[in-house]
């Protein structure tokens, strides 16, 4: 005889009791600081000048968005890094996922190996590549000279454009595996019958790819791209170790500039405002992106 679900009858307080430690901690360590940070952004607290601060309303925000050349440039620099990185990570990730999907033996081990770069800290990735980019003793220059591709030492950070390229390359190495894994999961959820049916109808591999794989992968791709985009706007450790924002200010990204303002100039209030601008910016980007992909889906349906 089946017992009634008496054991499952929930006492009103139980869910709360179970969840309360987490809720309490989240409130203390995340919600409260965020609120405090917003409050700070409305003051002019500057640790270098002294402990006193006065309320100045939204002045920090207007300054950041209209008068702070360096901050506006950091937005541009971040965009310059995000665009090629996103596109290339998507393409490369897709290519590798497609290849992996065809492999039957040993796929788990190869997947795991390729996934490793995505699991190391961006700081480690940057340090490894920084040494590889080394002008005199780095792996890339040494290899290039040995293969005869270059004849003198090549400096990857000699011009702003080259530096951005160098940063993008490291990010691609670091994060393509993630994109690949997401896409691979998406690929594996496409029913095989669709491909079989297409082959019966005489479709070539290319046609199957274009009319079956891509459309069914769209949602997965969108998710992957969105997650990467959000992460790319926060890029920090990579810049810190690889270029420190240089040469000049060409690789100074949003988060890095905010860090300099807060922890080198000690302008805590202004830095808080900057970080909120970043948060709002990311929020808007995400909403735009979601709207676009929903529109696309509606049209495709």
């Amino acid at each position, binding site marked *: 005889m089946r017992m009634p679900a008496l054991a499952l009858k929930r006492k009103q307080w139980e869910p709360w009791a179970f969840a309360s430690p987490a809720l309490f901690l989240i409130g203390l360590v995340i919600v409260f600081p965020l609120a405090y940070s917003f409050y700070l952004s409305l003051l002019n607290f500057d640790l270098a000048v002294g402990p006193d601060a006065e309320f100045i309303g939204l002045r920090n925000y207007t300054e950041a968005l209209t008068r702070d050349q360096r901050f506006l440039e950091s937005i541009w620099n971040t965009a310059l890094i995000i665009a090629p990185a996103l596109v290339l990570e998507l393409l490369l990730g897709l290519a590798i996922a497609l290849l992996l999907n065809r492999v039957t033996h040993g796929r788990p081990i190869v997947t795991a190996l390729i996934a490793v770069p995505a699991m190391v800290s961006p700081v480690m990735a940057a340090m490894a590549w920084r040494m590889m980019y080394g002008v005199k003793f780095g792996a890339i220059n040494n290899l290039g000279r040995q293969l005869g591709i270059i004849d003198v030492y090549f400096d990857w950070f000699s011009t702003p454009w080259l530096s951005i390229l160098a940063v993008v390359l490291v990010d691609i190495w670091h994060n393509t595996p993630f994109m690949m894994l997401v896409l691979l999961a998406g690929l594996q959820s496409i029913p095989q019958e669709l491909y079989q049916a297409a082959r019966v109808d005489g479709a070539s591999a290319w046609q199957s790819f274009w009319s079956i794989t891509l459309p069914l992968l769209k949602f997965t791709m969108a998710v992957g791209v969105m997650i990467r985009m959000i992460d790319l706007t926060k890029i920090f450790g990579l810049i810190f170790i690889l270029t420190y924002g240089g040469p000049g200010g060409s690789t100074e990204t949003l988060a890095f500039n905010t860090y300099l303002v807060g922890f*080198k100039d000690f302008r805590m209030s202004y830095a808080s405002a900057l970080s909120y601008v970043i948060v709002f910016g990311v929020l808007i980007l995400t909403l735009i992106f979601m709207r676009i992909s929903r529109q696309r889906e509606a049209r495709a349906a």
Partner: protein
Amino acid sequence: MKRLRSATSVALLLVGIAMLGWLAVPDRAPAARPYEGTTIRAVVNAEYVKYSLTLIEKDLYDALGVKIETEVIPADAFVAKTLLEFNSGSSPWDLIMFGPSNMPDYGRHFEPLEPWAAKLKLNFAMDDIVPVFAKVMLRFNGKLVSMPYDGDIHIMYWNKVAFERPENQKKFKAKYNYDLKPPKTWKQWDDASEFFNGWGWDGSQNKLFGAGASYKPSGSGYSYHWWRQRFFAYGGNYFDANMKPLINSPAGVRALEEMVKTIGFYPPGVMLFESEEPKTMLVKGEVPLLHSWTSTGKRVGNPGESVIVGKAGFGIVPGAEIDGKIVHRPAITPGRGMAVSKYSKKIEATMKVLEFISLPEQSLKIVMDAKTIMDPWRVSHLRNDKFRKLFPDADKYLDAIEQSFPLLVPDPVIPAADEYQRKLSFEITEALAKRKSPKDALDTAAKEWDKVTERRGVDKQKAFWGEKLHEMKQLGIEYHPEWAAKAK
């Protein structure tokens, strides 16, 4: 009876001698070390400095029983992190290494030395400190709060092979119409770096480079030092008496334009070079010219890594020819000092440690070692026989340093010095990276300087700067707007 008496006298005599002997022989066991078991915490901004402290740690322990535990905060974060700690009223460190140009921001957190010197009878050998360092590195609000640790200045180094090869001299004369000699003016420096770039001036087939420099914007920014020495030679100064920045005056623009025009003659990677890379290139014979910190000299003379031992020249940094005379303006860049934190719980022990590491013999060990990049700051360092014979031409090296002393230009030692320097270095590297014109870069820097001055309080800054302006005037350094155009 007689035998007993003589035996007793002999015995007494022996005992007497034994007693005398026991009193005369020094104690086998060492006297208890006064601070046995104490560990004090030091904070420094580079592994090199930590290494330098290890050179004296054994002697320190033998003398005082004190051990030093050193934390390294990389130069990038050093000022920020240490000041953040101090400004909130505490610090985990007892002994602080700091950059003297930041004294106005640090000074109020340091424990004055004189009361303790009187109490503990400390001897800092003040007369032995090179006067210009004594002026710049020791005092806050008139009180003595620190001792020098590293006497950073810039001098010029050149590769004799490059300058003395007859073929080189012929080629140079043909192209530039004057004799090839180690440059005395910036124009000559730029000509030489252009001349030497891109071929084997040492007689080999290698593609070598024209000159060395460091331009990375990390820490407080390196490019500022390279720019500054031209800027001041062309008559510049940091601010006028009203705190208006003068960095974007024609002298500054000219200095930066020259740097931008000649950057092609410097090795690839120069935009992100920190202090050591160009030194390595110099001692490996890849650049013939470098003006850089005095620690370079020790690397030049180190046969373990240098190929130019005995083949290097040392001199004063180039200047500008004004009305027939050459004006040199080498920079203090910026050196390091050591101070005791006011918030330390072991002030007495730390004072003794500070005295110890500042002793002429101990500090000599530090500044003589090639791996420490610490530089001489005592007169006795410069005159020390062992140092003068440490490597071929070491005496000429030390003389060049001494000759530079009267000409040195200090940093703007006012509050927010670190910020001024950083903002300026950033803009200089923007121009060097060709992202802005030199004029735009310096104008932006001047605007940033105004913003910093405003945030700190214009009147406060004016007061601090007024003092420094006066000091510099006494050293003969003043703003000369007309020099920029006529300097040769």
